């Protein structure tokens, strides 16, 4: 029924290179759905336990973080989606066409979809949604950024919506596929922020029934559901009667609740419990690394001592993390050598730049003038110790990662670096970053597609937003890199785009601005009663549309 061929589906694997192919294969097996047990049966309520912070607003247009995306995946459909091969596929839009100059996109929409409040889905609804996202009063950040180049959206007819752009945007489809740009009922939006935060209305497989703060959100099945993405395994309404969406912040309790059968699915499963679960054999793991950036350590090149590339390389050569990743993550995380997540086809990696070499590190530091050591074994220059401030957010780094940072601290000492870790809560952490009081930092960033590189490494990302937020933590400022990233975000040709991004990543890696660690870990554990769960290949949030319960 979705006969229209998406314009981006002609992706040549060979052109992307062997490495990307490897990444692709990896993605393929990591996103494997739970083994199907017989035929799906309808009925039953699934209990999901989230370890993420409870959202303060369920409307993913407002703000726009990962906990919101997890829930939004069950409630909203987006205009397009992405399949496991990285191709953009139809969802609420059946086809799309871009004008020659790349400044105008026309989306053809399904004409048989209705929001769960009875409002029909049409081009006007798309206009209302995009305007809602771009209205400052909505307080959107993720969706707002994603539509940065969109100047206007209009309804050409009942089923055709046109996006006008200020500049060509090669990332537009990827942006629209994200759950933060899910399509909401215009009537729901019109109720105002307070009510829409409490119970936003979509066209998705489940409907928000009730939100008991600090406890759970009840979702019930949308019996009239007709619009799954093109890669779903079935059509029509979901199998489950509903989902009981609970918030269990403590990882040990969450795992205990799964073991005791009190909940069916948990997210943020900790590495040691993954190992234990594998041993026990009754639980299924869903490993769905997030797209966008890899988890990496960023070296602040904006101030001494890391303004000197030799000091940056010395640090990268000095720290030994491979054994630590193996033991702390119990084999659940694979070392990365790329600024991009392995699910991104455009990811470029080069492990030769990251060989641990203490002698080389010492040489480089001597060259850079850090040739003396003090009584504690730390290097000094002009009476100043080689100290690196490392603010760590306890909300964003799991215990295993915090331990890994401690190991980095210990091995860096051999080369004479003093790494000073401070554990901070989220507000304190952002304050430290905003005040430029850091030399090393690790900040996850999830966004669909390689355009995330522009956000993280374009020099415009160094200037903080009025709120103090900025994304270029490595403070990379290279004119040629800026040019590469801007061009990549505008070209329409796939191969050319990927080549530009590869060049950009090479510049970033060779400049030793980042120390890639692993993909953004996103592990789910699924109890024995649940079948058919898969992660949407957009931002790797699990969808329970195809899931069913067996007794």
């Amino acid at each position, binding site marked *: 029924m979705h006969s229209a061929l998406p314009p981006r589906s002609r992706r040549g694997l060979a052109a992307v290179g062997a490495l990307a192919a490897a990444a692709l294969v990896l993605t393929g097996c990591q996103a494997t759905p739970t083994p199907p047990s017989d035929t799906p049966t309808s009925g039953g309520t699934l209990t999901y336990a989230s370890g993420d912070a409870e959202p303060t607003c369920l409307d993913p247009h407002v703000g726009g973080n990962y906990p919101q995306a997890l829930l939004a995946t069950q409630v909203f459909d987006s205009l397009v989606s992405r399949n496991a091969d990285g191709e953009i596929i139809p969802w609420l839009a059946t086809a799309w066409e871009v004008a020659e100059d790349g400044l105008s996109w026309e989306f053809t929409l399904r004409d048989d979809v209705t929001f769960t409040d009875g409002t029909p889905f049409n081009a006007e609804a798309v206009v209302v949604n995009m305007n809602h996202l771009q209205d400052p009063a909505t307080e959107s950040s993720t969706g707002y950024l994603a539509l940065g180049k969109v100047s206007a959206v209009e309804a050409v007819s009942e089923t055709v919506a046109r996006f006008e752009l200020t500049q060509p945007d090669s990332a537009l489809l990827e942006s629209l596929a994200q759950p933060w740009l899910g399509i909401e009922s215009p009537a729901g939006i019109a109720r105002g922020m307070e009510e829409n935060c409490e119970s936003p209305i979509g066209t998705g497989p489940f409907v928000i029934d009730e939100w008991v703060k600090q406890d759970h959100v009840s979702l019930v099945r949308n019996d009239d559901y007709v619009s799954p993405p093109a890669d779903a395994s079935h059509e029509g309404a979901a199998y489950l009667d509903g989902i009981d969406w609970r918030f269990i912040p403590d*990882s*040990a309790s969450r795992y205990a609740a799964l073991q005791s059968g009190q909940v069916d699915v948990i997210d943020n499963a*900790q590495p*040691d*419990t993954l*190992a*234990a679960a594998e041993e026990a054999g009754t639980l299924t793991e869903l490993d769905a690394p997030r797209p966008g950036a890899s988890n990496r350590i960023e070296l602040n090149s904006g101030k001494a001592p890391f303004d000197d590339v030799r000091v940056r390389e010395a640090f990268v050569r000095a720290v030994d993390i491979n*054994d*630590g990743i*193996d*033991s*702390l993550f119990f084999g659940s995380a694979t070392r990365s050598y790329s600024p991009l997540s392995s699910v991104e086809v455009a990811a470029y990696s080069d492990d030769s730049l990251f060989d641990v070499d203490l002698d080389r590190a010492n040489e480089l530091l001597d060259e850079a003038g850090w040739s003396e050591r003090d009584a504690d074994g730390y290097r000094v220059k002009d009476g100043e110790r080689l100290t690196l401030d490392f603010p760590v957010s*306890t909300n964003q780094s799991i*215990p*295993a990662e*915090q*331990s890994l*940072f*401690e*190991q980095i*601290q*210990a*091995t860096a000492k051999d080369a004479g670096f003093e790494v000073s*870790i*401070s*554990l*901070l*809560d989220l*507000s*304190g952490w952002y304050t430290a970053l905003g005040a430029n009081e850091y030399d090393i930092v690790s900040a996850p960033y999830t966004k669909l597609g390689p355009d995330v590189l522009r956000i993280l490494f374009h020099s415009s990302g160094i200037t903080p937003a009025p709120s103090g937020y900025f994304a270029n933590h490595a403070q990379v400022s290279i004119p040629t890199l800026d040019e590469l990233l801007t061009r990549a975000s505008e070209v329409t040709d796939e191969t050319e785009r990927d080549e530009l991004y590869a060049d950009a990543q090479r510049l970033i890696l060779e400049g030793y601005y980042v120390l890639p660690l692993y993909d953004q870990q996103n592990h789910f554990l699924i109890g024995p009663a649940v079948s058919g769960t898969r992660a949407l290949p957009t931002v790797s949030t699990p969808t329970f549309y195809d899931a069913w319960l067996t007794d």
Partner: protein
Amino acid sequence: MSELEVRTVTATAARRRRRIGIGELLALLFVLFLLAATLVPGLVSTADPNAIDARAAFSTPSTSHWFGTDESGRDVYSRVVAGTGTSLLIGVSATAIGLSLGLVLGVIAGFGGRVLDFTVNRVVEVLFAFPGLLLALLVIVIAGPGPVTATIAVGLSTAPGYARIIRGQLVGIRSSAWVESARVLGHSPTRILRRHILPNALAPLFVLATLGVGQAVVWAAALSYLGLGAQPPAAEWGAMLSAGRTYIGSAWWLTVFPGLMIVLTTIASTVLGRSLATRSREA
């Protein structure tokens, strides 16, 4: 006051006249070990507490690693030893802060007449109404996390409790028979305070304080659980306890040994504190 007591032949009296018992001896030995670990940690530890060895992570206790190794392959025994100083410092100074504040407030309330008593009581109640952890959280978000802030935070949040107990004690003793008779005998108020009231009020306080040291370490551990205690790589018992909790299913030794140290420290300090209190009362 003691004449009547001595003639009361009860187990209690016997307990009070005992010389150094086995419990006290053990407590003394343990405290000596703690002192050694604080002053000369190198002497009692077996390895560098911060030396990592990722390949030797999660080793069970053995002859080479008495208490096993942690998630980074560090020797847990040596970290427990290295953490003694920090932990005790947190415990003792937090208790000292809490107790001295509490003492000042309590004495003012207990002896300062009705107006002062009323005022101090309200102040204490206001402080009391702040849940201790909130007070601690506020101090930490204002002054930044770390052992010093944690100490001050814990000290401040325990002060109202001490103040209230002290006041209660003082009021009770003030109206007791022997103080009454001293007053009738015409003793000066300061003398009554010094000779009769304070000694009687301070003895239970001593017990409270020794308990408080362990409590303070536990509070500091709760702050570590919330990620706001001692900063890595510092080995501190509370921080070790909360870090090891993640692995409680697979590596029990990460939490049991630092936990044991907290418990033993509390017991030892209480046993010694109590026997000291008893002795001072007899003297």
